[in-house]
């Protein structure tokens, strides 16, 4: 009997709690109209950086891919040739793709990178209508050459690239309409799906 009464009392307590909250002031911020200042080291969208001379920092070593707990990064390396030199060493990333839908923004790729090529920027608004467009390839990850020339990325405040507008502007120029087929991982997903359906 005592437990029965106890059950009733605790049930009533639960109902009272939720009822109390019903009238309390809500702490929610009206996000799109009011934007909160994020922390200086906020982990947002990735960016691949360049050296001051415009060469890509990424050497395609795949250490970020192996460090990634969500298995979101795909890197396929290739060799620099004298005619087409992308990065200082022998190797560069022919393909560098991040599935931002898988990414958990933990920043381990940043930690793993031996050349500080991949960094997480504070950008976080990247919603889109197609899954395929969340697979960011080098065309959207890599800082445009003009942004990298002159300033070493290390000298930017907080180590975060100051100018994100160029990346933003680039997004609209990149053909993401083709969605999956624009990226290697997307192609794989597509063939996988084909395999499942067939």
């Amino acid at each position: 009997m005592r437990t029965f009464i106890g059950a009733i009392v605790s049930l009533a307590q639960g109902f009272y709690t939720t009822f109390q909250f019903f009238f309390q002031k809500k702490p929610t911020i009206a996000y799109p109209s009011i934007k909160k200042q994020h922390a200086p080291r906020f982990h947002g969208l990735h960016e691949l950086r360049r050296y001051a001379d415009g060469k890509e920092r990424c050497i395609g070593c795949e250490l970020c891919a192996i460090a990634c707990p969500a298995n979101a990064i795909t890197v396929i390396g290739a060799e620099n040739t004298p005619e087409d030199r992308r990065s200082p060493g022998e190797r560069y990333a022919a393909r560098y793709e991040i599935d931002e839908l898988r990414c958990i923004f933990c920043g381990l790729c940043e930690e793993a990178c031996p050349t500080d090529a991949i960094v997480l920027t504070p950008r976080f608004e990247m919603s889109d209508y197609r899954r395929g467009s969340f697979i960011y390839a080098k065309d959207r990850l890599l800082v445009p050459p003009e942004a990298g020339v002159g300033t070493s990325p290390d000298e930017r405040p907080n180590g975060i690239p100051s100018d994100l507008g160029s990346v933003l502007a680039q997004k609209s120029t990149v053909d993401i309409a083709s969605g999956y087929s624009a990226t290697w991982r997307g192609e794989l997903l597509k063939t996988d799906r084909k395999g499942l359906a067939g």
Partner: protein
Amino acid sequence: MNGAPKEVTLTIDGTQLTVPEGTLLVEAAKRIKTDIPVYCYHPKLGPAGLCRICLVDVEKTPKLQIACNTTVGEGMVVHTYGPKVEDGRRAVLEFLLLNHPLDCPICDKGGECDLQDYSIAYGQGASRLADPKEIKPKAIDLGPTIVLDDERCIVCQRCTRFDEIITLEQSLVVKDRGQRDVIATATGTPYVSMFSGNVTELCPVGALTSKTYRFKSRPWDLNRSLTTCVQCSAGCAINVDERHGEVLRTMSVPGDDAVSEGWLCDRGRYNVGFYSDPRRLTSPLLRRDGEWVQLGWEDAIDLWARTLHEAVDSAGPKSLAALGGGRLTNEEAYLIGHVFRALGCENIDWRTGRQRQASPGPRGGTYADVESAQAIVLVGVPPAQTTPIMSLRIRKAVSQRGARMILVGDYALPIRVAHERVARPRDLASLDLDRYERIAFFWDGIDPRVGSELNEFAEGLAEGRKIFTYVTGETPNARGAEGMGLVPRSGGRDSVGMLAAARDGNLRSLAIFAANPVLHMPGGADSVRGAIENVPFVVTTELFMTPTAERSTLVLPARGPFEKSGHTFDVTGAVRVLRPGVAAPTGTLSDLEILIALASALGVDVPGPAALHRQAALHAPWVARGFGDPALFAEGELKAPRAGAKATGLRLVIAADLFSGGGTVYHDDRLGELRPLATAALSEHTAAVAEVHDGYLVDIVAAEGTLRGLVVRVAPNHVDGTVTILEGLPDAPASAFEGGQTVALANVRAARVPVGVA
């Protein structure tokens, strides 16, 4: 040496163990599962004592000893770890890393590198080097397959010793001394070897890398699966490393001592790019009014079955024929015979190339038998070009056991090795072979008359001796095809007869399974092509649009060996297992699936998978012993050589090349320079007489026509008065010509072609 070897008892890390006298410490430690780090030492190459990473502490010796070159002694007490040992190893590693670049993130070895691993285990974290590191050349093009990074080299000399001890080719050396030593070829020419890929595996650091794999992937990305290489009939176990549905590299299997001993030839290692080639066929194609039309699988199989039924109904089962099987698994070969015999068709043959026989008869030997032979007789094409791994055993027997090497015929050996040469097997009688107890005979399986002469001779010797015979032909699973009964029985036609019947218009339907007779069948490409075009309905299962497939009515996209499972027999008749290592492209089916679909469309019962696998392995001991059904080995008639053309006295030799062929090699872009040029090889003397030089372009005029634009190669080991051309090149088809006829060189041009592959 007689009697049991003496046993020695010693203590390693407190564990007492007894090993035979003469065992090296590093091997003894393996018995108690203690791993002593090594760089220069390799079980197959022996000790060198160069790198000194294997330092161990042996009690009662003043200094640390190297485990790889110290033999065990009675009562020895060894410590493989401890402060003293670790100090020593740390010092050694500091020296090794002195000039070694810290570019692990871009190094292809990173992740499977011994230097990396031992540096983590024993090395000291920071470098004490104050001066800049030694700058050495990087990315040196060592040859068609290998790129060398001298900065990473720790001069363990595994590669040079492999080249010296195992392949006997002796082209790699350590050039210069001290701080400036680098790996190079002795002559300064490119490093060319059919076993070159092995040095990349032997290299304990990332100094030697494969051109096909450079910067493609990292080791942890790869999905590895173990299967059997069926590029030739050697049957080596092979590890297939796949990523994103693409075979990126293949690796040898260290434990495969029964066959490959842990080596791979370059064809097996590098000819894997074709799996992901965009030219792969992925849909059944039907030729309708000269155009290729895509077809669904069901329609294709139905059409085939209907045509077969109609042909049987209207012209009887003798109007059907099936070719091929020598490149398929045993299961598939068995099903070809099963399905077509169910229709009453006996025109079944696997012999779609020059090879006419696969079984060595009752005296077939094993790989181990080769090593023990005191005399080795090579009849016809040497095994190096057909079954390279077998040739490594022969080289081992010659170099390490002093076996006598005798070459029969005009073919050249790829390496400089002391040998004698006679023209025909019957001439062997003059060589006093009866003083040997163990003799191995190798035959290429091409000319049946040579084969019977060889058999006769071997039978004559057999009394009281161990005779091992091998047929090292060029067809990968020829023994499987023979064992599964893919030869005409009771009045059926063989492949030559089938083509004759086709020319006469007596064939209504021809099925060609994974074969390319247009390129490989003797009798001339034009005549084979004409015969095939004369058959109203030709079905070909192929990976690519080969010359044969181009002339078929229906082409079915098949799967390659790494894309299916099954069994094969190797050259010694042992069973090897195939397992899928990479996903096949959508739209392809394995020949087994194609045959099962055909059987069900025809209404023929097929054995279930379990029964099929039993069938495929059941014949194994039977084939291994060589006691085949004699009827199985009935020979088809070869045309007699015709009288020669205007002779300038050169005898034509048609040699096989490891990288010839119009299918997988032709469609593998990664192979690049490895694909042979169309060459005419001459001995130095002949070249001098004919006044041609290395790299000239010539035409060869023979009775059947002219072969144009061959590159002259002046090479050692060729018989004077012969010109050797390569078989199976789509650009210069040698199948139109008969070996042994006299030909003339014409239209010599002094156009120098860059030095490439010999």
